[in-house]
């Protein structure tokens, strides 16, 4: 973990100091990332995706802008996992480093914060990790996101559970009081109620909670059939362990979004078995893209060749943001912000990430996010049908 950050930091610094020299023939894209602080592991993932895109594009001669080809340069700035710093960093990238485009900072909260800056300066901005509708409903024109709204995760999940286990009708929800975890929990409540299930427990827990025993004891007393919990990796590691400690079992246990990360599976061990989750992408999906990566398989292959590991949805989304930006620039034939913005607004193509079309708010509306379950220590896709690797298994102990 140590080297990539240090390397990236070095790259960022040299990038910062080598500003004016090559302004003419390169496209500069700014990326404020939480390279230090609590979110630093996320920054590493984002950088992997962005760097893979930039290297692939440059290896092919660069991005085609009208008649000429321009190289891509990503300018990274660390914002220390501190949202105001992210806003500052975005502004600095635009005003000082003169970037033409922006990749949003990590997560819904920071994206929402920084979106004001890019809107103010009219810089087209791609958000690779923001899903909550609250980010996009501000009436901004320059913000585009690669994650579908949260209900596109909870809706198919609820359908699958409904179909596979008609007896499941008591749902307990425990959510971290934080933008994304809370927003998706609220969607889950809606999805459950829509299908006639009763939500017997819905509580938030504070960021930094060290003990979930009381909440879980209360949930156990409600004897739910489906437990839906949200949080960051550490929250859900602790929570899964405490469920076992309290012998809290249920036919279905869903956790978002940690099970998509190998780190969570490692830290929970056997307890990860049969936990379900959903994410916006999975390496098992199969799309024939028109972007520089081509098919999903070829993207995964390239990623594995470079990083010796399978990409997760966050890494893929970062690379997809680059690929989409490239296609929009090529379509616009210029790097003029307003024109690229229009190209993004009317974007309608298939990429390795999936079909890409942005709704009126700028959020992608065309994706069908996969639902998966940890089976035999591995994420196994159970939806959509086209890429299914297994069936939903009931019972989590």
């Amino acid at each position, binding site marked *: 973990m140590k080297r990539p*950050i*240090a390397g990236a*930091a070095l790259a*960022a*610094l040299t990038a*910062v100091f080598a500003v004016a020299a090559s302004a003419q023939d390169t496209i500069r894209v700014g990326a404020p990332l939480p*390279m*230090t602080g609590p979110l630093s592991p996320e920054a590493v993932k984002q950088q992997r995706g962005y760097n893979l895109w930039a290297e692939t594009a440059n290896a092919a001669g660069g991005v085609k802008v009208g008649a000429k080809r321009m190289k891509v340069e990503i300018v990274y700035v*660390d914002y*220390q996992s*501190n*949202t*105001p710093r992210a*806003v*500052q960093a975005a*502004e*600095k990238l635009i*005003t*000082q480093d003169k970037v033409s485009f922006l990749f949003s900072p990590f997560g*819904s*909260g920071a994206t*929402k*914060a*920084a979106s*004001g800056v890019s*809107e*103010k*300066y009219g810089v087209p901005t791609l958000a690779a990790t923001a899903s*909550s509708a*609250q980010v996009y409903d*501000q009436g901004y024109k320059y913000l585009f996101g690669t994650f579908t709204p949260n209900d596109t995760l909870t809706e198919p999940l609820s359908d699958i559970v409904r179909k596979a286990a008609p007896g499941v009708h008591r749902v307990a929800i425990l959510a*971290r*009081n*934080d*933008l994304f975890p*809370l*927003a998706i929990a609220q969607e889950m409540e809606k999805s459950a109620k829509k299908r006639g299930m009763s939500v017997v427990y819905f509580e*938030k827990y*504070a*960021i930094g909670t060290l003990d979930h025993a009381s909440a879980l004891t209360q949930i156990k007393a409600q004897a739910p059939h489906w437990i839906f919990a949200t949080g960051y990796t550490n929250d859900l590691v602790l929570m899964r362990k405490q469920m076992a400690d309290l012998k809290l079992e249920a036919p279905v246990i869903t956790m978002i979004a940690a099970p998509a990360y190998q780190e969570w599976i490692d830290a929970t061990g056997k307890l990860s078995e049969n936990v379900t989750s959903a994410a916006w992408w999975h390496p098992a999906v199969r799309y024939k893209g028109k972007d520089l990566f081509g098919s999903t398989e070829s993207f995964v292959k390239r990623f594995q060749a470079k990083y010796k590991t399978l990409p997760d949805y966050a890494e893929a989304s970062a690379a997809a943001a680059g690929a989409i930006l490239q296609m929009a620039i090529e379509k616009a034939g210029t790097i003029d912000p307003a024109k690229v913005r229009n190209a993004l607004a009317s974007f309608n193509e298939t990429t390795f990430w999936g079909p890409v079309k942005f709704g009126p708010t700028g959020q992608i509306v065309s994706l069908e996010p996969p639902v998966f379950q940890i089976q035999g220590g591995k994420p196994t896709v159970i939806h959509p049908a086209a890429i299914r690797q297994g069936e939903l298994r009931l019972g989590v102990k």
Partner: protein
Amino acid sequence: MKRDALRAVAMFVLIALLPLAGDSYWLRLGTTMLMYGVLAISWNFIGGMAGYPSFASAAFFGLGAYAGAVAQKLGAPMGFAWALAGAAALVFAAALGVALLRLRGHYFAIASLVVAEVLRELVNAATDLTGGGMGLNLPIPRLASIEGQAMFFFYAMLALAALAFAAMLAAMHSRLGFGLRCIQQNESAADMLGVNTTLYKVAAFMLSGVFVGVAGAIYASWVHYIEPPDVFDVLYSVKAIVMVLIGGAGSVFGPLFGAALFLSLEELVWRNYLQVHTGVLGLLIVLLVLFLPKGLISLRRRTA
């Protein structure tokens, strides 16, 4: 006093000319420096003059930020929202002061420290009003140009810093400042001499809150997005203290000087030691405490 006032006027005029020299990056840095200046000057009222180790700056800052933001969300004009934030911080500081200023030393430090934690969680929980963990967006003024906006917030922060400075200068040369110095030296002796210690301490605490509250509100309008963990960050409290320690507590220009120096160091460290910048900051604090007690001497008191 006259000489200090003249010097201060000269200095603030000089700062006011900064936008002529620098680009937007310098303007932002200048705005941040003035905000830090407000934090440091404000802390000087309670920490430097009265000698109480307060960690409440973050609470005032966050409270002001949210008071201003919520007022604007409910339709109040920006200027009014800022004033409201100041009033909220003032009242809160008064109530808190009456309750907490009976404590001394570590107990006061810790109690004032956790106030921000409690406020943060309350704001977090009041989702309907504050947006809770989802944060709160403020309207972006679309009238002025981008440079105009940056300039506007710079001058707003400058005016606030000048106001805080003037208040500090006035206090230092008034009954209040004299009384606070007595309290800082020996509280029970001051009491016995006829100083209404409770009143004076609460007044100092209110002064240390009101400007920080307004600064929080200006900050919220400036970055137009706030969320609880950021505006209630304990580092606001710590930075205020470190800046005053650098500059020398109790002195007139110390807090401002400390703010400028601290921000320069922060920028420098942040740019050049990305990986270890908090560690370098820590090292700085340790070295300061160990080897620069001269600048810190006026704080010598109250170990209980």
